C-alpha cells in the first residue's frame, strides 16, 4: 500500500463547488423555459421570432466583442437575450429588438468590463434604451391582445389596453386571467403561473434567495392594499392584482435577483427588494407611466454598492 497517496497536503480551499457560471446560466434558461413556452402559447409565432432575434443578437454581439468563436460560451448572453425578449411587447419591429439586444450587451455589460462587473441588469438597460428611444412601440400604446393556443394567429390585429392603464382596464380582466397570463402585456410578464414555476426551480437550485422576491412582491402587495384604489370589493384582491398585473413577478423573480447587480448580504437583499417594490408602486400609482418595474430595478441597481456597504454583517466573535 502506498500511504503517501492517501495524505494530500494542500492549502485551502478543500471543498470545491461543481457550479460554474455556465451551469447557473443554464439553470436560469431552464427556469425561463415555462415562461417562454407560455409566451409562445399565448402570442403565437411572433413571440418565437422576437425571442430568436433577441437571443441570436446578444450571443453574436458578445462573441464578436470578446472575439470568441464559442457563441454560447458561459451562457450569460443567451440569458440576457431571452430576458430582454421577455420585457418586449409580443410583436415589436425586428430592428428594435436588434438595437435593444445589442445595446444591452454593449452598454449594459461589456463597457463595464463584462460579466460580473456590470452595475445594471443588462436586459433592463436594453429595455430602458428602447423605451426612451421608441416609446411609441412599447408604452402608452394599445397592446397586442393574446390569442391563446392559436399558433399562427396575427396578434397585431387584435389589440387591447394594458390592465395597468386605469381602473376600468383593470376591471376588464379577471384575476384568473392574470394568473394564467391570458392578458395584454410584455412577452414574459403576463403569466404569473409560469413565472412561479420558473421561480420555484431557481429556488430549488439555490440560485435565488427568498428575500429579494419576497421583499419586492410583499411591498407591492401591501402598497396595493393600502393605496391601490380598491377597485375590487376586497382590498386584498386589489393587492393581488398589483402583484400579478404588469412586470412585478418577472422583475422580482428574474431581474432583481441577478447575482451581479443585487446586494450580497441578507439584510441588504431585503432592503433591495423593498426598495424595488416601493419605487415600482410610486411610479404606478402617482407617476405618469402605467408601469415602473424597469426603472425601479435600475434605480435600486445603482444604489446596490451603498446598500452593501451599510449592511456588512458583524464578524462572528469580532468587534
Amino acid at each position, binding site marked *: 500500500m502506498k500511504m503517501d497517496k492517501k495524505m494530500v497536503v494542500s492549502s485551502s480551499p478543500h471543498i470545491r463547488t461543481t457550479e460554474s457560471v455556465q451551469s447557473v446560466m443554464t439553470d436560469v434558461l431552464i427556469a425561463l423555459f415555462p415562461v417562454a413556452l407560455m409566451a409562445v402559447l399565448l402570442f403565437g409565432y411572433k413571440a418565437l421570432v422576437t425571442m430568436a432575434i433577441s437571443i441570436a443578437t446578444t450571443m453574436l454581439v458578445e462573441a464578436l466583442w470578446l472575439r470568441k468563436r464559442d457563441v454560447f460560451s458561459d451562457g450569460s448572453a443567451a440569458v440576457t437575450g431571452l430576458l430582454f425578449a421577455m420585457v418586449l411587447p409580443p410583436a415589436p419591429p425586428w430592428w428594435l429588438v436588434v438595437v435593444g439586444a445589442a445595446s444591452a450587451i454593449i452598454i449594459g455589460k461589456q463597457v463595464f468590463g463584462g460579466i460580473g462587473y456590470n452595475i445594471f441588469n443588462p436586459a433592463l438597460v436594453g429595455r430602458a434604451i428602447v423605451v426612451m428611444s*421608441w416609446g411609441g412601440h412599447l408604452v402608452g400604446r394599445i397592446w397586442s391582445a393574446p390569442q391563446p393556443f392559436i399558433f399562427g394567429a396575427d396578434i397585431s390585429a387584435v389589440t387591447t389596453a394594458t390592465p395597468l392603464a386605469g381602473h376600468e382596464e383593470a376591471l376588464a380582466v379577471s384575476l384568473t386571467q392574470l394568473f394564467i397570463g391570458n392578458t395584454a402585456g410584455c412577452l414574459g410578464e403576463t403569466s404569473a403561473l409560469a413565472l412561479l414555476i420558473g421561480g420555484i426551480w431557481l429556488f430549488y437550485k439555490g440560485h435565488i434567495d427568498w428575500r429579494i422576491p419576497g421583499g419586492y412582491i410583499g411591498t407591492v402587495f401591501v402598497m396595493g392594499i393600502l393605496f391601490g384604489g380598491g377597485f375590487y370589493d376586497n382590498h386584498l384582491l386589489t393587492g393581488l392584482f398589483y402583484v400579478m398585473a404588469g412586470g412585478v413577478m418577472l422583475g422580482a423573480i428574474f431581474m432583481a435577483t441577478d447575482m451581479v447587480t443585487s446586494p450580497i448580504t441578507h439584510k441588504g437583499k431585503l432592503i433591495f427588494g423593498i426598495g424595488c417594490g416601493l419605487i415600482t408602486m410610486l411610479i404606478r400609482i402617482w407617476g405618469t407611466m402605467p408601469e415602473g418595474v424597469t426603472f425601479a430595478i435600475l434605480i435600486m441597481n445603482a444604489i446596490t454598492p451603498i446598500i452593501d456597504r451599510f449592511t456588512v454583517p458583524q464578524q462572528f466573535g469580532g468587534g
Partner: protein
Amino acid sequence: MKVNNPYLQDLTQGIVKENPTFRLLLGMCPLLGVTAYIVNGLGMGLAATAVLIASNLVISMLRNFIPPQVRIPCFIVIIATFVTIIEMVLQAFQPVLYEALGVFVPLIVVNCIILGRAEAFASKKPVLRSLSDGIGMGIGFTLGLVILATVREIIGQGTIFGPDPESAIHLFGANYEPMALFAQPAGAFIALGLLLGMVNVIFKRFNI
C-alpha cells in the same frame, strides 16, 4: 515628433493632447446641453472660442496688475464682459441660434475651460502665447462639440444640419424612426462615454 516652436505647441496642445472635451473633460455642461444639433454645437463652440481668445488676451495683458488675492473676481469680470458682447451679437445677428442655445450663452461666464485657461495659462504666460493657447483650446472645444453633435444628430434625429427644415438633410429616408434617446441629455452622456472610449483607444494606438 518634437515641436520646438512654443506658439505652435500651445496651439496643438489644446486641439489634441489636452483637448478640453476628450482629455480634460471640461465644459461638460454646454457639451451635453446644446449638442442635439450640429449647428447648435458649432455655434456654441465658436461663441466660447471668441470669449476664450479675448479673455485670454486681456487677462494675459493685465497679469502683472491683478493682485493675486482677488484674481478670480477680476477674471470673472473680464470674461463676463466678453460674454455679454457675444450674447448681444448673437441676439442681433443670429436670433434663431440664440434661442436654441438659450441659457447656455450666459453660462459661458462660468465655463470651466475659460476660467481654467485664465487661471492656469493666461495669468502666467506672455500675451502671444496666451493668444495661441486660446485659439487652440477654442478649436479643441469646438471640435469636441461638433463631433458629439454629429453623432447625436445622425442617430437621434436622422438628419444633418437640422433643425432648420431648409438646410436639414435626411440621411435615412422617411421610414427611419430616429433613436430619440440620443436627442435627450441621457443619450448625450452615453454618446460621450462611448466617444471617450474610442478616443482613448485611438490615442493609445498612436501613442499620443
